[in-house]
């Protein structure tokens, strides 16, 4: 008997600071297992440059600082979905937050 398949995410909106496994660790875990999911990181720690640099990867689309606007989030999600649709080819550089 084959187990039912789980729908894979097309985009992941991921908090950097999580209880237990952090968002950065989770992202590394996904990349290591070849889960190709574009990620939009969100965080309430604007001064954490280390987390920002660790979050950067080929699959990181945006790094947004809370509080972010509706447009910032939806633009990032839209970019992630387009990115996913395009596949691995022609990937752009990660988008930077307007809070920088």
């Amino acid at each position: 008997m084959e187990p039912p398949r789980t729908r894979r995410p097309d985009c992941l909106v991921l908090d950097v600071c999580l209880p237990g496994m952090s968002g950065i660790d989770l992202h590394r875990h996904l990349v290591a297992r070849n889960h190709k999911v574009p990620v939009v990181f969100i965080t309430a720690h604007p001064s954490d440059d280390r987390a920002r640099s660790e979050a950067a990867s080929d699959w990181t689309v945006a790094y947004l600082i809370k509080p972010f606007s509706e447009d910032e989030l939806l633009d990032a999600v839209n970019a992630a979905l387009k990115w996913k649709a395009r596949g691995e080819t022609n990937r752009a550089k990660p988008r930077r937050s307007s809070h920088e």
Partner: protein
Amino acid sequence: MSDTGAFVYLVDDDVSVREGVARLVRSAGLMAKRFSSGDGFLAALRPKLPSCWVLDMALLAIGRGLSRLRVYQIAREFDARLEGRLDERLRVARELHDTMLQRFQASLAQMQAARNLFSRRHQATQNLERAITWRPKRLPRDGAQFRDYVVRRRIGGIWKSC
């Protein structure tokens, strides 16, 4: 953004952020699934076992194995629920610290400044007016920075710093 049927997974331990962002994503015609932790998200990615099995008696040994597996699953679900409750309590404590305590502290400081100036009536009135109409526009960021400071120096063992 039109209705694309795309799935956006959202992982955030703050329930208000999780709900708010999920609503926003849905309002844009997308589907949203919410998770409070990375472990919960990874569990959802794994293939799920069916909730009901029909077994031939010849497969009894396998059935016993599956029973044990089910017991193990129930134990894990219980642990996850317990952990979720603990996380929620920590989050509430952190929120109390970040918002209520600091707003109270800021208001108190304004009131104390007004009291100290009561001998000079005009300045006291102005200070009280400021205290009443004060809006903590910069508080979310200041609060986060303050929390970082506290976590690094005093209670890193309670709140995980990432």
